[in-house]
C-alpha cells in the first residue's frame, strides 16, 4: 500500500488547470476558511501541528519557518521556489502544469500566515509551458478575487508575479534565487542574515518549494493534527517522488512517507528492466549520497534516510542498474555540478573542476588507484567548507560512490589503462579550446 493521495487526488482530472474545474473540486475553499475564520497565527499553528517539512530539499519544518518572520511593520515577501533544477526532480513541473491553482491557493495561505503582501514564483526558464499555464492561472485567480487587494473581503491583499529564470541550477538555492529575482547575478548570499530577516529587497521573506506550498490548502482542509497522522512521527504526510533512471515505469508518484523504498522502486516504478539488478540509487536527487541494492528495504522518510547517511532531499529517486559503470555516473554528475557551480567560493569552484578532470583521467586510462585517494580527499575538503551547499551536493554523492564502489573504480582504471596507449605519459597537453578571453578585455 502506498497510502492516501492528497496532492495527486484529482491530478489527472481534465481541465483542473482552469479555475472552474479547480473550484468545482473544492478549490479555494481552504483559502476562504483561512481568510474568513482564522488569524495568521492560527494558520501557523495548524502548519506546525501538521508536521509539514519543506519539500524543496532541506526538509525544514514549514510552520517554524513562517514563525521566524518578524512581526514588524515593513514590506514582507513570499517567494515560491519553482526552479526545480535538481537532476531527477520533476514533481513540481507536473503539479504546476496540472494544478496551478493549488499552488496559488497555497501561496495566498502562506503569505497570509507570514503577513507577506507581495509574492513571487521563480520558475526555471526551461518550464515554458508551465510558466504560461501559471500566468494564465494568475490572471484567473486575480479576476476571481483570490489575488489582489482585499481578498474575499478580508482586508488582506497580495500581489503575485511569475518570474522566469534563465537556466541556472544555483538560482534554486534560496539566496541565489533572491539575488537573481532582484536582477543581480545569481550568487548565494552569506547567511546570516537569513531570508526570514533580510531576504528579498532586504525585507523579511519566506521561501518555499512548490510542493510545500501546494500542500498547505490540504492541511487547512483536513486540519494539521489530521495531516500529522499520515506518514511517520518525524516525516508527516505524503510526498511526491520522481522516479527515474533504470526503472520500467518512471514518473511521479505520491507516497505516504515511511513506506519501504523497495515498494516505490519496484512496486510503483516497476524496478529495473528484466534481468537487471539495482546497483545503486539516489534517494533524494542527484545531490544525495548513493545507496546500494542492499539498502532497498529501508523506510523512505527524512530520518531513516539520514540515518543511512543519505537524505530525502527533493524526493527524486534515480535508479542505476548493474549495466551502468559507476565511473560514467560519477563523471556525468561531476560535470553537472562543475557546470552549475556559481564560482563564488573557492572549494566548490575549483573542487568541482578538479574532480571532473580526475574522473576524466580515470575514464581515459590516465589515472592510478592513488588518484582515487586524492579524489576522496578533495571531496572531504569541499564538504562543509563552502558558502552554500552546492559544493557538498557534488562532493557527497561522489564521495559515497568512491567509497562504496572502490573496487569497480580500480577495475575501471586498470581496464582503461590497458586500452590507452598513452597511459603513464602524464596528463595531456592543455586543450587550446580552454584558452579564453582572446577577444579582448
Amino acid at each position, binding site marked *: 500500500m502506498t497510502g492516501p493521495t492528497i496532492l495527486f487526488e484529482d491530478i489527472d482530472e481534465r481541465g483542473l488547470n482552469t479555475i472552474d474545474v479547480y473550484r468545482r473540486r473544492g478549490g479555494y475553499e481552504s483559502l476562504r476558511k483561512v481568510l474568513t475564520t482564522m488569524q495568521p497565527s492560527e494558520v501557523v499553528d495548524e502548519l506546525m501541528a501538521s508536521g509539514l517539512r519543506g519539500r524543496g530539499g532541506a526538509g525544514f519544518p514549514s510552520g517554524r519557518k513562517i514563525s521566524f518572520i518578524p512581526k514588524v511593520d515593513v514590506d514582507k515577501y513570499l517567494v515560491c521556489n519553482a526552479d526545480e533544477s535538481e537532476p531527477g526532480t520533476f514533481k513540481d513541473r507536473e503539479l504546476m502544469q496540472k494544478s496551478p491553482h493549488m499552488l496559488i491557493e497555497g501561496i495566498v495561505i502562506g503569505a497570509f500566515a507570514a503577513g507577506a503582501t507581495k509574492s513571487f514564483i521563480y520558475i526555471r526558464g526551461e518550464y515554458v509551458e508551465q510558466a504560461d499555464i501559471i500566468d494564465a492561472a494568475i490572471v484567473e485567480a486575480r479576476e476571481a478575487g483570490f489575488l489582489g487587494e482585499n481578498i474575499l473581503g478580508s482586508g488582506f491583499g497580495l500581489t503575485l508575479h511569475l518570474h522566469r529564470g534563465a537556466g541556472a541550477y544555483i538560482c534554486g538555492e534560496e539566496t541565489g534565487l533572491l539575488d537573481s529575482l532582484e536582477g543581480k*547575478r545569481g550568487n548565494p548570499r552569506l547567511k546570516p542574515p537569513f531570508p526570514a530577516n533580510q531576504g528579498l529587497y532586504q525585507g523579511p521573506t519566506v521561501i518555499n518549494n512548490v510542493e510545500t506550498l501546494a500542500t498547505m490548502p490540504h492541511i487547512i482542509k483536513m486540519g494539521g493534527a489530521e495531516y500529522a497522522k499520515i506518514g511517520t512521527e518525524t516525516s508527516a504526510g505524503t510526498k511526491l517522488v520522481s522516479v527515474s533512471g533504470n526503472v520500467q515505469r518512471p514518473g511521479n508518484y505520491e507516497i505516504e512517507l515511511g513506506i519501504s523504498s523497495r515498494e516505490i522502486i519496484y512496486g510503483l516504478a516497476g524496478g529495473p528492466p528484466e534481468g537487471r539488478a539495482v546497483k545503486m540509487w539516489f534517494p533524494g536527487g542527484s545531490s544525495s549520497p548513493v545507496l546500494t541494492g542492499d539498502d532497498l528495504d529501508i523506510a523512505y522518510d527524512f530520518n531513516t534516510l539520514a540515518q543511512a547517511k543519505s537524505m530525502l532531499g527533493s524526493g527524486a529517486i534515480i535508479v542505476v542498474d548493474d549495466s551502468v559503470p559507476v565511473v560514467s555516473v560519477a563523471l556525468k554528475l561531476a560535470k553537472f555540478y562543475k557546470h552549475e557551480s556559481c564560482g*563564488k567560493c*573557492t572549494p566548490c569552484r575549483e573542487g568541482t573542476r*578538479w574532480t571532473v578532470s*580526475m574522473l576524466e583521467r580515470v575514464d581515459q586510462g590516465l589515472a592510478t588507484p592513488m588518484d582515487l585517494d586524492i579524489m576522496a580527499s578533495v571531496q572531504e575538503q569541499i564538504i562543509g*567548507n563552502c558558502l552554500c551547499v552546492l559544493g557538498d551536493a557534488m562532493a557527497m554523492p561522489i564521495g559515497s560512490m568512491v567509497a562504496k564502489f572502490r573496487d569497480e573504480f580500480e577495475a575501471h582504471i586498470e581496464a582503461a589503462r590497458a586500452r590507452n596507449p598513452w597511459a603513464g605519459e602524464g596528463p595531456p597537453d592543455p586543450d587550446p579550446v580552454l584558452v579564453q578571453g*582572446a577577444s579582448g578585455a
Partner: protein
Amino acid sequence: MPRPAPDTIAFTVDGLEVNAPAGMMLADAAKLGDVEIPVFCYEPKLGEPVGACRMCLVEIEGIPKLQTACSTPVRDGMAVNTQTARVKEAQEAVLEFLLINHPLDCPVCDKGGECPLQDITYGWGPGRSRFIEPKRHFVKPLALSPLIAIDRERCILCYRCVRFSQEISEDYQLVLQERGADSYVSTFDGHPYVAPFSGNIIELCPVGALTSQPYRFRARPWDIEGSGSVCLGCPGQCNVEYTVRDERVLRVLSRQHDGVDDGWLCDRGRFGYQSFHVDERVTHPLVRVDGELIPVAWDRALDEAAAALGGAGSDSGALAGGKTTNEEGWLLQELFRGALGSPNVDSRADGMLPRELHAALHAPALQATVPDLEFAHAVLVLDCEPVDDQPSLDLRIRKGVRRNGVKLAVASSRPSSLDANAAAVVRYAPGAGEAFCAALNGALGESDAGPGSATRKGVVEELAEAAGADADAVRALAAVLADAGEDVVIVYGERLTHGARGEDAARALLNVCGRVAEAGHDGAGLLEVPAGTNGRGLREVGVLPNAAPGLAPVSPVGLASAELGASAAAGAISALYLLHVDPLRDLPGRATWRAALQRADHVIAHADFLSEGLWEYATIVFPAESYAEKEGTITHPDGRVQRLRPAIARPDAVRAEWNVIADLSKRLGHDVSVLSGAMASARVFEAIPFYAGLTLDELGGRGLRWPARPAAAGWPAADTGPFGLETPPHAPTPNGALRLGTFRSIWAAQEVEVAPALKFLRQRQRAELHPVDAERMGLAHGDRVTVGSNGSRVQATVVLRSGVPEGSVFLEAGIAEESASELDGGGLVEVSPQ
C-alpha cells in the same frame, strides 16, 4: 545619527583571553590577541563581508561546522581555535584549491614580494600540490583600461574589484562574466574600465591579477621605499604613500586615513605622479630675455625679482593658487605686506567676502567633518560636484547613503552624479545659488512652527522662480532636511560665495544652516569644498586682501583677484606675483587677465609647468617643487592641519619655495628669519592664534583638526545669523540664447595633460545641452558648435544630457584649450553650428 559605540567583550582565541568591541568580526578581533587569521576576500573597506574565498575558516566551540572569521562577529565568551588540525586542513585545502589554477609566475609578477597570496601560501599552505591536470588558461595580460592590466590566470576570484566597482564607486562597470571555474572579471560590454576611482582595484587585488600599467615592471619590492605624504591634487588632501626608487616616484598608494580619505584615491591623485618626472617640467629659474624665457642662475633671477618688486612697491599684487602651502602663503603675505607695503594678496578666485563671513562660515561651532558625512541624518550637496571638485567626498557620501541610510539632497545647476542616490534634487539656473539658498531658507521657514519665522505666502515661489528652480522641488528638498533628524551637514562649493553677490549667498547659506543644523552640535554643520587644494589654509594664514594671518583685520584692504586683474589691465600694477597660479588657466575673466599680464611690467611666477599665461607673459619664473618634494603644512576643509613630507630630492636647480620667498623678503629688507622648513611652520603656528601650540611632531602622519583643540578659542567671534536677506537677482531669461554654466572636471588638471598615463583623459571642450534645446537649434550629439558672447567664443562638441536644465549650456573651465573662462560666466551665450 548616533555613531555606534560598542561594548567591550571578552573572548578567547587559541586559549588566549582577548578583549574586543562587541560585533567586531573575528578576523579583526583575533588580531587584538596577536593571532592572524588569513583572509583574501575580506576587506572591511568594501562593506559587508561576502565569505567567498573560505580562507578564514576557524573553529568556534559549540558550532559543529567551521565558520568564516571574516563574517562572524565576536560575542562575549566565544572560544575560537585557529590552530586545530581541522582548521589547518581546511586552510591547506583552500590554498591548494586556489593554487591549482594559479600560474605561479611570481618571478615575473609585479605583485611578487608584496603579494598576500604568496605570503599566505608560505604561512598556511600545504607546501605541495597534488594537482597534475592542465591549468585554466587565459590570454594575458590584457588591458582592462589604459591604466590597468588584467591577468585573469592570476585572479583568485575574490570579488574585491567587482565589489569596489559595484558598491563603493558605484560606477557599475566591473562584473564577473561566466560561471564557476570559467568565471572571469570584466566590464559588462568589454569596454575599457575607465572611471574616476578605477585605480583603487589595483591596491585591492590580493594577487597580481590587476597591475598598474605605468608601474608594471618598474621595480621590485626590495628596490623601493615608501614615503608618506599628502596628495595636493584637490582639497580632499588624501593621505598617500609614494613608492620611491632612486629619487623617482614610481607609484602612489593610499595611506589610509579614515578621517580624510577612507583609504581610497582617485585616479588623478594615483597616477598624476608621472608629472613630477616629465621633461616639460621647469627645473631652473628662467628670465625673459628678448621675448624668450632662458635659464639663469638663481642669484640673477632673485636679484631681478627683488628689483622688480622693490621698484613696484605697493603697485604690486600677489595671487596664491590652491597648491600653495600654509608656510608659502604666510611668507607671501609677509613679503607683500611687510616688505613691499602692498595689501594686494589673494587666494580666492573671484570676489571679496567680508572677514566676518569667513569667520562665520568656518566657525568651529558650525564645522562639520568628513566622517560626519557618513553618519549624518541628512546631507545637502550644494553648488558643487564632489566627484570633480573633491573626489574623495563623492565616495564618502555614497558610503553614508548606502550603508547608513543617510538622506541625501542635491542642489546644483549642473546634473550631479549623486542625483541617483538622492532623496531630493533641485536644479537651478547657473549662478543662481544665492536665489536657491534664499528659496530654501523660505521653504524651511514655512514649516517652522515659530510664528516669527513663518514665511510670507508666495515667497518661496518668487525666490524659486528667481533661481530658475521648481518651488515644489525646493519644498521637497527642505522637507528632507527638516525631517531627517538633528545631524544635518551641508557640503557647499566655494563657488557659491564667489562673485559680486557671494556675500549675499553666504548670508543665505548661513540662514539655511541655522535652520537645519544647531551650532555646536557635533555631527552637523557646514563643510566647504574650497576651489583650491589648500583654500582654507591660505585664508587662515592671511592670503586674503581683507584679512591678516588668523583672519585678523587689516588696513588698508587690498585688491581681490578680479580687481587686481582689472587694475593691472588698466596699467596701475607694475608687478604681479603668481604663486602656483596661471590666471589664464585658473581664474575667470580670461580677457581681462590677458590684458593684465600683458600690461604689467613684471610677472613673477612659481611654476612647475609653463602653461599658456606664463609661457607668454611671465618675466621671471622660479621652478616650483612638485608636491612629492615639498615640506610644510596644509589645512583640510574640515580644519585638519596636515603635514607634507618630502619623498624625493628636488631635481636640478629647484629650490624650496619657502626659501625663495623668504630670500626675496630678506633682499627687500624684511628679514623673516626663516632658515628651514620647520622654522617656517613654527612661524605659522605662532602667527595664527587658533593654530597656537601646534608642532610638526604633534601633527605627525595623521594631522590634527585644529577646531577640536583648545586653541580654537582663538578663532574670531562671528555672527552666524539669522541675517536679513536682500531680494536676489533674477536668473537671466534665455529668450532663445542659453544661460552659461561652467564646471571643472576631475580631469581638468595639469597632471592629466602631462602625465603620459593620464593623457588619454585630457579634456576637450564639450557643450552640455538639454535634448530639447538641441532639437530647437537643430543640433545633434557630437556636432561641433561655437559658443559665444560679447565677441569672445569657444569651440565645442555637443553632448546631450537630459539632466541639464532647459535653457542652459555647460562648458568646462580650467582646460588648456577653448576653456570656458574665455566667456563671461553666469551670462547668456549663443550656440551656433560650425
